[in-house]
């Protein structure tokens, strides 16, 4: 699983960080998404898929 984030689209809702804190974070100066792990391991994949599905701006993309 490869994860991509679009920092221009991101509105800083923080759902992804609440769901997968090992994979996503938010910038301290702007609250916008930071990608910690572009290729998350098995334990995080379900949470990452959920984060992508519920992101309010569709800023998270997933490819195999």
């Amino acid at each position: 699983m490869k994860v991509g984030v679009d920092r221009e689209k991101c509105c800083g809702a923080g759902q992804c960080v609440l769901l997968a804190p090992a994979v996503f974070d938010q910038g301290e100066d702007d609250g916008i998404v930071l990608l910690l792990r572009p290729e998350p391991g098995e334990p995080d994949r379900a949470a990452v898929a959920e984060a992508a599905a519920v992101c309010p701006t569709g800023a998270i993309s997933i490819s195999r």
Partner: protein
Amino acid sequence: MDADLPEYPFTQPTALEPPPEWEDLRDRCPVADIRLASGDRALLLTRHADVRQVLGDPRFTRQLDADGAARVTAQESGGVFGSEQSAMTPTGEAHQQWRRLVGRYFTARRMTAMQPRMAAMAGSLIDGLVAGGPPADLVKGFAFPLPVWVICDLLGVPDSDRDRFSHWSDTMLSLTRYTQDEIDAAQLEFGEYLWAHIEAKRAGPGDDLISDLTAGGELSPIELIGTAQGLLIAGHETTANMIGKMVAMLLADRSRWERLLAEPALVRTAVEEVLRFDANPGFGMPRYITEDTVVGDVKLTAGSTVISSMAAANRDATAFERPAEMDLTRTPNPHLAFGAGPHSCIGQALARTELQTALTVLLDRLPGLRLAGPAADLPRREGLIIGGLERVVVTW
């Protein structure tokens, strides 16, 4: 003159049940002509894809000060959806800058760090309820004071002034409840209060959002007041109402409450599901359409005012399996309770953390909680842009 247009907001059969118009319009007329409390006409969207599209379109904003835009409330001006507030709401790039400036205070990690203090506050409120003994009104004793305390703490304003905030918030959120004079007076008082507060923080800064924003100098005084006002109103009314509705929904069918007692790990998905299932969230989100655009197979013409019913969209069978059923394990749950797109709720990580904390503490401390009367008799708060319950009387 179009006397037959449906009047919006629609009436619910009871406080926890959705108005039947939602399903009807979603199936039959996804872009519906409606009449607002002002008498003006608008278009109502009820499908998930349509609401998501319009709210996510950066061209369209809440700029209801435009010529020909519909007036949302019964009064001429004022309040959250009034023309002055619209004129102050930044759009496009200015909005993105504002969003990032303020958004950094509402990150998931900051909210998670506040969680132990929220839990302690929730615990002490429950101590108060227990000391008074059952029955008790959960709205007054728990659902309102908790979010007010949290947002006051974040903003650095004294929560001893909370009765004044409640009054100012209610007037600013009035749909039909208050007169123009009352709204104007509240707006003036609220602005003066916040201005004095900002001046005090300039002289003696604390460890809070208003002190930081004041010292940072990025916002003008008017923008600072608008920001503080918006955060105080949004931060307290919405979550407070949602805590009351959440508990009512979970107790209305007590097998839901019992399931959470048995499986507390479901609190997170249960909170998302009550947000989706909320049949009384309030008015919805207005947008002024500035360029012709196509939604579904309907053309919206420039100059129309569109109201997105996120709650109707949250029961759309094309987006959710068995939408009329409350499923505490639903995953993923792409509900639109916080809106969508660049303007979606800035405080949603805060709201989620508060709702999860409130529910966890209630389950832990008051496992025997139940409604004191029939769910169908729960009284709605009337005449405001946001929906809620006036009282949720419980025993334990």
